[in-house]
């Protein structure tokens, strides 16, 4: 998909596939085109060119929207409604019958931890509470796919944990979750797969469940490291930092670890510590996007 506003390109060329039943993280710096992309997927905005299919139907298809839940960033709605009234309204709009709603509404309010506030009007809700009720409205019709735009931005740690548990529970019942969040640590422990986008293009993707083909940071403590031996390590890494007995390097694949260890021993080094560490999503993000991009 491509989206141009006036002369400004918001999404250059977004091409991606989201597997069903997974939690899919959508990452990128501010202005990368994430929100515009989500709007195009939901039919809120029309692509300038290209097309998208959601659950097999063109994006924006009215019937398919029965199977889609959406929590917008900064969820807002008529402030004079109570949580139960809001959920009933959204349920009715999704075609949920009143018998089902009478069970779903209190259950969802309980699920998002708002039962003590059931009689309050939304105008008295904090941002975090609005996020919670917004999440509940996205789930009211038991959708097959949920788009969550910054679902934890206004939440405290307990609230974030709750959202994480709900997202996982949804995945476990087969729901696809499309998650856009700035909180990389949340994405890291929640998502099955992530893509990084920049200027409306996918830069790279990462499967969070496998560790085989990932970059690994290696911390080594060894003696008798000759300069030739250290130079030889550049075969597996662009940058090798040496600080007396400590050596730090990043290798692009976990598969190369045995070769590196064998090489060090063969080169006569006494190895005391050989610790591979998975790069955090944040380190990966910074490596891909650069630290000066305002994320």
């Amino acid at each position, binding site marked *: 998909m491509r989206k141009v506003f006036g002369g400004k390109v918001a999404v250059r060329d977004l091409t991606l596939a989201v597997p069903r039943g997974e939690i899919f993280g959508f990452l990128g710096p501010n202005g990368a085109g994430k929100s515009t992309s989500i*709007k195009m997927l*939901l*039919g*809120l*905005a*029309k692509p300038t060119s290209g097309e998208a299919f959601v659950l097999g139907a063109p994006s924006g298809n*009215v*019937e398919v*929207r*029965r199977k*889609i839940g*959406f929590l*917008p*960033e*900064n*969820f*807002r*709605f*008529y402030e*004079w409604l109570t949580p139960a009234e809001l959920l009933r*309204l*959204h349920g*009715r*709009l*999704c*075609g949920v019958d009143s018998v089902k709603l009478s069970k779903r509404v209190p259950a969802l309010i309980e699920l998002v931890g708002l039962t003590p506030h059931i009689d309050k009007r939304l105008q008295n809700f904090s941002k975090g509470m609005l996020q919670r009720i*917004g999440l509940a*409205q996205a789930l009211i019709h038991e959708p097959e796919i949920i788009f969550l735009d910054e679902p934890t931005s206004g939440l405290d740690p307990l609230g974030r944990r709750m959202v994480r548990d709900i997202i996982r529970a949804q995945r476990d019942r087969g729901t696809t979750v499309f998650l856009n969040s700035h909180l990389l640590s949340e994405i890291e422990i929640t998502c099955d797969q992530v893509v990084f986008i920049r200027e409306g293009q996918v830069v790279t993707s990462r499967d969070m469940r496998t560790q085989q083909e990932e970059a690994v940071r290696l911390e080594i403590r060894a003696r008798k490291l000759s300069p030739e031996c250290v130079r030889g390590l550049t075969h597996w890494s662009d940058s090798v930092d040496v600080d007396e007995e400590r050596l730090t390097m990043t290798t692009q694949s976990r598969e190369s670890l045995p070769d590196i260890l064998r090489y060090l021993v063969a080169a006569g080094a006494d190895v005391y510590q050989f610790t591979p560490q998975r790069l955090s999503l944040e380190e990966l993000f910074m490596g891909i996007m650069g630290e000066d991009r305002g994320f």
Partner: protein
Amino acid sequence: MGVWIMAGITFREAARKKILWTALLAGAAFLLVFGIGLRFQVGDFRNSAVPPFLRYQVISAMLMIGLYTVDLLAVVMTTLTSVDTISGEITSGTIHAIATKPLARWQILIGKWLGFVAMAGVYVAIMFWGAIAEGFFIGGVMAQHPVRGALLVFLECVMALSVTFMFGTWFSTLTSGVITLGLLGVAFLGGWLEQMSGFTEGSRLAMVGIISSLVMPSEAIWRRAAFEMESPLAGSLQFSPFADVSIPSGAMIFYACAYLLIALTIAVYHFRERDL
């Protein structure tokens, strides 16, 4: 079904707006003042030698002025309560949670429109029939065809509503409000200029009035409503400011209906096509 859910929630949303209650308060104040004015006038006539025929015409003219005030209040109230329902919800993002539900965009817009139509109907009914009742019970006068008059005032409100919706799909709340009220102002001025033109033969003022009525036919619809409600004698003898100097024809009612439908169709089309 979605249309009616949207209409219901919009009606409840509109009913909570301060502007509606302010307008109702202003309306209540108006009805109070109008009732007191009528009572005083009736009292004054009782102690005077003014002939009954003239008394009736003066009280009837007062009723027409009262109904004209109701008309202005209703149109302005309809415009101001509805002006941010589309543009405001697009700006705030409130529309996102609705527009991603299994509803076509036209259902959202028409549902909202129906909600405001219902609210305008209730407002017109309360105010219009309030003034008519005061005229009858205090002043002892009755409009000629009050139902026709009420329907035309309602048509005027629905037309203003449709125009407000049309601009709301394009512009910000403030801009749409300014444009719609500006158009109503043009219609108001044009209507009175056309009325003035009746005093001289072949006045160019009439042309200004006609063009204004084509740009926004609201005032023309009121003058037609006034023609329907005034007694033929009062109209022809020019006892009231809405005398039969320049009466919009039935074609103008047709034009106003077409104008309303075109504005609504444009609003639906543009709301369907635009990014939210």
